[in-house]
């Protein structure tokens, strides 16, 4: 057992921290989130040049073979700055699914471009009725000649509006919520019949609703075995969930630092408000939640690097439910302790609150993961 980072890992962390320091001042982030795109293509290029977009891919496909721990390190540092680029969508979801389930040709035609920063991806899984159930898939893929025809609606696809290709879950057989019969397809967003409508999300990012209206794709669009995608989706969703947990840990650490500093400097009644015991204890509770969360995020990443079993799933759900609870508490209380300042768009703390609230519900909220934990226990 070793909870310390290796030398290479320290270098990786320093490099992401440096990037955040240089590019993600609170004002810069606010401005960027308000642009049409919602992130920066220059940043994306830099991320590619720094090798981050290839970090999580196996060496065989041109990546650096980093594990969940490397992802955790990067996400935690990005979380501190509330980084907006579609790293999770492109690399940890779309890219990871293709690397995991794709054929040699599929991987070759897509992953190198992702690593170079020339191709963006998204994962379209949620549907209006599905809530957090990854197997609740009503979008259909019907065999037609050599290929398939896709029909259905995917909702709140993070970065669907900027993705060149989306990985789509669709049902090739089975009933509405069966694990059996779900397949994955890689679809060009400009293919005919694909209607992508993008909008802003509360955390300053972008998502899209995507309608597939009899979209014809070739047999080569199928990712992995037909009807057997559920376990792949679950695994990649768990890895992404662990990454989001790490992002939350970084965001909580930053929110706590900002709030702690505010308690020391803001004066009311002639003294710093941090002298009021009720606020001291609140801050202590926020600190404790952040510490517990960091432990759980580290634990989940390390377990993922050992292998993928029911125990790993249980660990990820435990981490997400702890972190979901912490996200809400730390986010809400850091606004509260700022008084009116916390309610403004201009000041950074509210943005931490909003991203933390969002992470709480991505890939299943606290209740969802507590139930999954319980089912696996």
């Amino acid at each position, binding site marked *: 057992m070793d909870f310390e980072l290796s030398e290479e890992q320290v270098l990786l962390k320093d490099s992401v921290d440096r990037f955040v320091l240089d590019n993600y001042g609170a004002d810069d982030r606010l401005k960027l989130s308000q642009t049409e795109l919602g992130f920066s293509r220059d940043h994306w290029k830099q991320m590619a040049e720094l090798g981050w977009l290839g970090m999580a891919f196996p060496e065989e496909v041109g990546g650096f073979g980093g594990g969940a721990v490397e992802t955790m390190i990067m996400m935690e540092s990005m979380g501190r700055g509330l980084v907006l680029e579609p790293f999770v969508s492109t690399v940890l979801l779309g890219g990871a699914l293709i690397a995991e389930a794709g054929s040699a040709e599929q991987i070759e035609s897509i992953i190198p471009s992702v690593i170079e920063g020339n191709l963006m991806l998204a994962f379209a899984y949620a549907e209006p*009725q599905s809530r957090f159930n990854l197997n609740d898939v009503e979008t259909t893929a019907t065999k037609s000649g050599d290929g398939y025809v896709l029909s259905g609606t995917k909702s709140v696809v993070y970065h669907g509006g900027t993705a060149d290709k989306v990985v789509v879950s669709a049902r090739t057989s089975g009933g509405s919520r069966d694990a059996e019969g779900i397949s994955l397809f890689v679809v060009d967003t400009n293919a005919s019949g694909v209607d992508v*409508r993008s*909008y802003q999300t509360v955390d300053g990012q972008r998502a899209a609703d995507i309608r597939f209206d009899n979209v014809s794709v070739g047999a080569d669009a199928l990712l992995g075995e037909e009807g057997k995608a559920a376990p792949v989706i679950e695994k990649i969703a768990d890895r992404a969930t662990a990454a989001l947990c790490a992002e939350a840990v970084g965001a909580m650490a930053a929110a706590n630092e900002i709030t702690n500093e505010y308690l020391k400097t803001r004066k009311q009644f002639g003294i710093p408000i941090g002298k009021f015991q009720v*606020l001291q204890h609140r801050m202590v509770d926020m600190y404790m939640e952040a510490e517990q969360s960091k432990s759980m995020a580290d634990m989940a990443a390390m377990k993922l690097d050992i292998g993928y079993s029911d125990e790993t799933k249980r660990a990820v759900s435990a981490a997400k439910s702890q972190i979901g609870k912490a996200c809400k508490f730390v986010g809400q209380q850091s606004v509260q302790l700022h008084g009116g300042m916390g309610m*403004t768009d201009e000041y950074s703390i509210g943005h931490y609150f909003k991203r933390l609230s969002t992470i709480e519900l991505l890939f299943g909220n606290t209740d969802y993961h507590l139930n999954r934990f319980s089912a696996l226990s």
Partner: protein
Amino acid sequence: MDLSFTDEELAFQAEVREFLETKLPADVKDRYERGLHFTKEGQVRWQKILNEKGWMAPNWPAEYGGTGWTATQKYIFAQELGRASAPPPIPFGVSMVGPVIYTFGSQEQKDYYLPRILNSDDWWCQGYSEPGSGSDLASLQTKAVRDGDEYVVNGQKIWTSHAQHADMIFCLVRTDSNAKAQEGISFLLIDMNTPGITLKPIIGLDKEHTLNEVFFDDVRVPVKNRVGEENKGWTYAKFLLGNERTSIARISQSKLKVKKLRAIAAEQRTNGGLLQDDTDFMRKLNQIDVDLMALEYTELRMLSRIQKGEKLTAEPSLLKIKGSDIQQALTELSVEALGMYGVAYEAEEIREGRNDQNFAPDYANGPMAEHLYLRAASIYGGSNEIQRNIISKMVLGL
């Protein structure tokens, strides 16, 4: 002790219900039901309808244009407003400055301002908080220096809600810098069109504009616009805050929200069934409903003590704390009800005209906006920490 209504009270209830069903403008109702900020035009239009009926100010004495209702009638009216999704009047005029004017103001002030408040001719805003004086309100620094028949006001207010719409601002200003903090404050009524007043918008967490900074640069205010005595403003200010804290509990609004959440739960699909079959979700909703009931009966019990002539000290602070906790829990749950659609959020200006552009259910427009804004419910009107300090000092003697 008796909870039932008399026949007259039931008839009154039917009258209110009928009035709201026929007179409440649909657009006003829709925004309110969603939890979106009002538009000034819609709100004024609605308040004028209320005033025409004579129902604008149930809490005012009849001689100033109040309704002369019993406590039970007021309760029924508030319940019916909530039930019909009818917004209550904006508090700054009718609930805040109005009672200060009829209690402490000059005859001239009463004659001029009270009818204008009732008819929504003036839009009022509240100039209490300053950058350095939030929780410690008494430390406020905006100065008013006497110059003949006028005060010359210099300084800054902040977090002034809806000041961009306002015709008038009621302001706490320092008129004696040598006295103890609480003893050098006066209460002024200031015309927002007076030269020297400038506004700067503050955009909120919800990306909307309700908050403002208000700057005073040699603003000349007639001395006759002072309420009551010079340097006694703190007394009037606290009187007003006491009123603010009861109306801030927003019980009937929360009841409405519970009802709406039950309706959403009956529609929102999950796991092949409906959200109302999700025991985790329903347990949370029912817990809030129980908390709300406890709050309602606490409020009724307090109102009955007031009716009897008892003087409450800091008990209304309880209503404020519990009321805001409930509002926040409800909006949080409303967002949760939407599942993934909880994260889709655009400020109104951006969203304008594109409601149909994504496939979210119609009720997705609103919950997040309200959730974000109501984080302030535990901050404004005296933060919940400050309310607890007040209870511990005034009620518990700690």
